[in-house]
């Protein structure tokens, strides 16, 4: 059975290790915060200038001066700090952030990603995504395996304008966990009840299947 967005977030949370500074993109990645296991110390960075993000504020305690990159009102945890945008991207570009989790419209088997523009249709801008994908060493994409028209989003080559080249290390979709290797998409895990054939069918790029593929634990 295809995973829900929450389950994708839950599976990605297993990739979060003790002591990680993590940048979460908008959408599914934001949900990861809810599934970080107990006993794991993690700090969330938001590129608009805060490290140590906490949960949403209680009603009535919202502060227009304390928001995340999704422009949502937030709180901070003990040990948090605020900083300017140049310093924030110094953290990102300087590889001080250990893990980046973001959404994508397309991912290619060589690690390219496209998630910022559909020519003539949608031009919202790249925000911090280009800095993130060009800098981070550990980037996980959270996305649906296919688009609304049922077409694969895991491609031989991206068709949309690129956000970054050769940068994605892992994809967690509603169907599978996939590692990006020199030879293509390597299938690591299946969503519970989803067959390798279904994943193969939904993947346009080269899918490498070696041995038994276990089911995800979500």
């Amino acid at each position, binding site marked *: 059975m295809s995973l829900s967005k929450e389950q994708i977030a839950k599976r990605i949370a297993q990739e979060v290790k003790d002591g990680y500074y993590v940048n979460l993109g908008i959408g599914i990645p934001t949900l990861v915060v809810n599934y970080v296991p107990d006993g794991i110390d993690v700090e969330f960075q938001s590129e608009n200038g805060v490290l140590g993000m906490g949960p949403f504020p209680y009603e009535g305690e919202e502060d227009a*001066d304390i928001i995340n990159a999704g422009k949502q009102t937030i709180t901070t945890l003990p040990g948090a700090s605020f900083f300017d945008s140049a310093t924030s991207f110094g953290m990102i570009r300087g590889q001080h952030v250990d893990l980046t989790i973001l959404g994508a419209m397309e991912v290619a088997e060589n690690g390219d990603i496209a998630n910022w523009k559909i020519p003539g249709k949608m031009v919202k801008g790249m925000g911090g995504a280009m800095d993130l994908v060009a800098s981070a060493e550990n980037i996980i994409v959270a996305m649906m395996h296919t688009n609304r028209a049922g077409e694969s989003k895991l491609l031989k080559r991206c068709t949309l304008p690129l956000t970054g080249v050769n940068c994605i290390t892992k994809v967690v979709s509603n169907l599978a966990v996939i590692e990006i290797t020199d030879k293509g998409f390597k299938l690591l895990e299946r969503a519970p009840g989803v067959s390798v054939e279904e994943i193969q069918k939904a993947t346009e790029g080269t899918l490498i299947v070696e041995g038994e593929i276990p089911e995800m634990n979500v």
Partner: protein
Amino acid sequence: MINRTVASVKEALTGLEDGMTLMVGGFGLSGIPENSIAQLVKLGVTDLTCISNNAGVDDFGLGLLLQGKQIKKMISSYVGENDEFERQMLSGELDVELVPQGTLAERCRAAQAGIPAFYTPAGYGTEVAEGKEERDFNGKPHILEQAFKADFAFIKAWKGDTAGNLIFKGTARNFNPVMCGAATITVAEVEELVPAGELDPNQIHISGIFVKRIFQGEKYEKRIEQRTTRVRS
């Protein structure tokens, strides 16, 4: 002590003309120079180029300048959440240059610090790299990016003193400090203006040397774009 105060927002914008390039602080609607933007609307200056991470929403922030078609070109990293913006852009009325957010911040900081150009990995292999020099450092490709040039920078801070020193609050800091001193004339508006000497010199985020004119804003709406809360358990 050099006094950087001006009496009003009107005086703060002296010299502002059609066709100028402006830097405008803020992220989304947080930390935007509300009073300066209102005055820009009032002045009715046109053909502006605005360097700002976002373009406001339809009826607030830089969206107000878009409504009056005062902006010729936007240089931003993210311009969603604004229908009028999208309409003007797709119809070709508005010229838009999209810049990765970290590069945007660093190009401001470079202008502030007298660094004419720097290399960054952001945007390599994408549209952003078109026409730019590419070079490998440490086995990794980078592109050359240049410092911005602007006539005015509009900054919003929390507290300021008469010497022009600024302290920002929370994530309303964002692009504001990096734009200070990055334009010919930096105008800072603050929620609270105090006499020089009242702020702890150790806790000043931006020294007055980067600020040409400072004034206390008349009022702040501080609109929240995405009000998210949790229930008290």
